[in-house]
């Protein structure tokens, strides 16, 4: 039903969208890393996010732990899970044709989601920790979204510091730029693969923990984030990690505006059309990327 959109509503839509976008950015960064370093499309990224969300939920429900504090647990936990998955399964499809990595990660995602379903049932859970909002004039800044956004921002910043300043981080970037040359330079790419997957899983899990504060937790919750992460990578450019950050914000913004002006159902379609257009015009991504 078309109604007039006032400035206040627009601003609200923009703010809500950006807050969501920060989260997308953090989660997509993980997927971008995996794709950049290993040329693997990780369809299981959503389930890693889901595991982080459940970790936070159980810590909250059983021990009353502050969900934001639980990030200190869900990050290392998912890091380990990521390393294990890489060591057992993913290493076999590194640099392989995309079909293999798609199928394998798809299987991993189904397997983990099924185990979650059996272990925790399909019941929707929620972490009722923070509700309500800060009211700034006409704008309601949802408390959970705002704080999650701040954490997402902070963690992403730390991730970038790691990638840019630390020796391992630089090795990761080198490997993603040119795997063979990196090996020639003496970088142990197998080890880098392990660390990268672990880091990406950790980012996804942290994303899940933050999501659990805002939305419901259930076994299939991660699926939409996979698609969104794809969009972000395309928007930002594969291998362009700062690009992934801005890509996330852009996606959040587009979604927020689309669901405000059009129907909620069309926001996905809009995002996809955007994806296809960008892929056509700049196959390496909207911002600087590499093919």
């Amino acid at each position, binding site marked *: *039903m078309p*109604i007039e*959109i*006032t400035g*206040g*509503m627009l601003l*609200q*839509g923009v703010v*809500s969208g950006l807050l*969501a976008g920060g989260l997308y950015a953090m989660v997509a960064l993980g997927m971008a890393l995996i794709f950049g370093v290993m040329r693997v499309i990780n369809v299981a990224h959503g389930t890693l996010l889901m595991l982080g969300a459940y970790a936070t939920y159980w810590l909250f429900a059983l021990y009353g732990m502050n969900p934001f504090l639980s990030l200190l647990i869900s990050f290392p936990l998912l890091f380990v899970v990521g390393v294990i998955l890489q060591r057992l399964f993913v290493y076999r499809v590194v640099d392989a044709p995309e079909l293999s990595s798609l199928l394998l990660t798809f299987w991993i995602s189904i397997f983990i989601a099924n185990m979650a*379903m059996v272990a925790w*049932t*399909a*019941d*929707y*859970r*929620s972490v*009722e920790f923070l*509700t*309500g*909002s800060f*009211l700034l004039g006409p704008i*309601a800044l*949802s*408390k*959970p*979204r705002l704080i999650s956004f701040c954490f997402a921002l902070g963690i992403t910043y730390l991730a970038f510091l790691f990638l840019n300043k630390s020796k391992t981080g630089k090795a990761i970037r080198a490997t993603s730029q040119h795997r063979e040359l990196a090996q020639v330079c003496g970088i142990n790419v197998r080890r880098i693969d392990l660390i990268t997957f672990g880091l990406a899983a950790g980012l996804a899990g942290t994303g899940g923990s933050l999501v659990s504060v805002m*939305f*419901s937790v*259930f076994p299939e*919750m991660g699926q939409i984030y996979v698609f969104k992460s794809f969009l972000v990578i395309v928007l930002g450019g594969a291998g362009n990690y700062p690009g992934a950050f801005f890509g996330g914000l852009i996606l959040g913004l587009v979604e*927020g505006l*689309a*669901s*405000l002006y059009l*129907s*909620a*159902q069309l*926001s996905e379609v809009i995002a996809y059309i955007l994806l296809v257009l960008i892929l056509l015009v700049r196959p390496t991504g909207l911002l600087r990327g590499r093919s």
Partner: protein
Amino acid sequence: MKGSSKAKENLGWVFLLGLGLGLLIWDSAAAQAPIKVGASISVTGTYAKLGGYTRDGYLMCAKEINDKGGLLGRKLEFVIYDDRSETTTAIKLYEKLITEDKVELVMGPYSSPITNAASTVSEKYKKIMVASLAATTSIWERGFKYLFMTISPAEVYMEGLVELAAERGLKTIAVINEDTLFSKAAASGTIDLAKKKAMKVVMHDAYPKGTTDFSGLLIRMKALNPDVIVAGSYFDDAVATTRQMKELDVNPKMFGVTVGGDVPDFGKQLGKTAEYVYGSTQWSDDVKYPGAREFTENYKKMFNREFSYHAPAAYGACQVFAEAIRRAKSLDSDKIREQLLKLKITTAFGDYQVDERGFQTAHKMVLLQWQEGKRVTVWPASLAEAKPLYPTPPWSQRK
């Protein structure tokens, strides 16, 4: 020799007696073969919570009937599969139940969309389906002969809320709904009721099943500032919408949800945020139907938890079906159909009577409100435990 022929005669009697006894035992053993009743229920997936209560209702009904000697002298045995809240799976499962497992009777799944699809299978094989948890009118407008409705239709779910709103002179209403069969019917029914009370519908929008982010819809609603907001929802979207209303500071004077508001977990998950929300239900535990109190006690004993109306609905539907079978004295679909069409009965779930389409005409809805962490019946007046807490105070004034 007289002696030996007598012995032979005796032997003959013993033999005949033995044969007769053997046949008797054989006959009753064969008659003991249980009546298999097939159903697919959403044990996993988005309808899992409510599907679980449905299954409980069926199992309780079977247990009661079996404890009292069974149906037509045979025990009832439910064969239940998980349709994962998916219609295509349900279709496959009902085909399997009827053609492979060879069940003699079928009962309905949970939810209108799934019943809509599954009933095409039961109708194809001319098996009666008592649709215990389907409330959408259009399902009964397809001219099916073997489909029967036991709960009130979707269109009247929010009748109580609209009446209460009109009594208090409220003028504007906004409606959102999940884009599926039941929710759409509930939304349009609510809109019709509202228009009859001269209320203005300022917004009506649908969201895809599985939506978790309602901010776009809520931002628009906030700008319109309606007196009443109705969400045609199931459980998870009801929870998410309520929570996000608080986050975006949307303050209607009355807010009701069609499904989900009556589920105990709604209050558990939302805590104080659930206060003042109106939920609609087909049954509440203070209704005065025969056997209602016993049902509540037996349920707590058997499953040790709270429940929502879906359990007694499934239970009641099964009871209605059983009664019709008893009166028809057979498992033949056409005979049972005859009985179901004329049957007028009140079970623990409420009144039952259908029109020639199999559409329910007698059962009544109940409106409840969350007050101090409890579900309280507030409408109709004849069943109300308390007055509705009106108006819903704005979030900023609540603690």
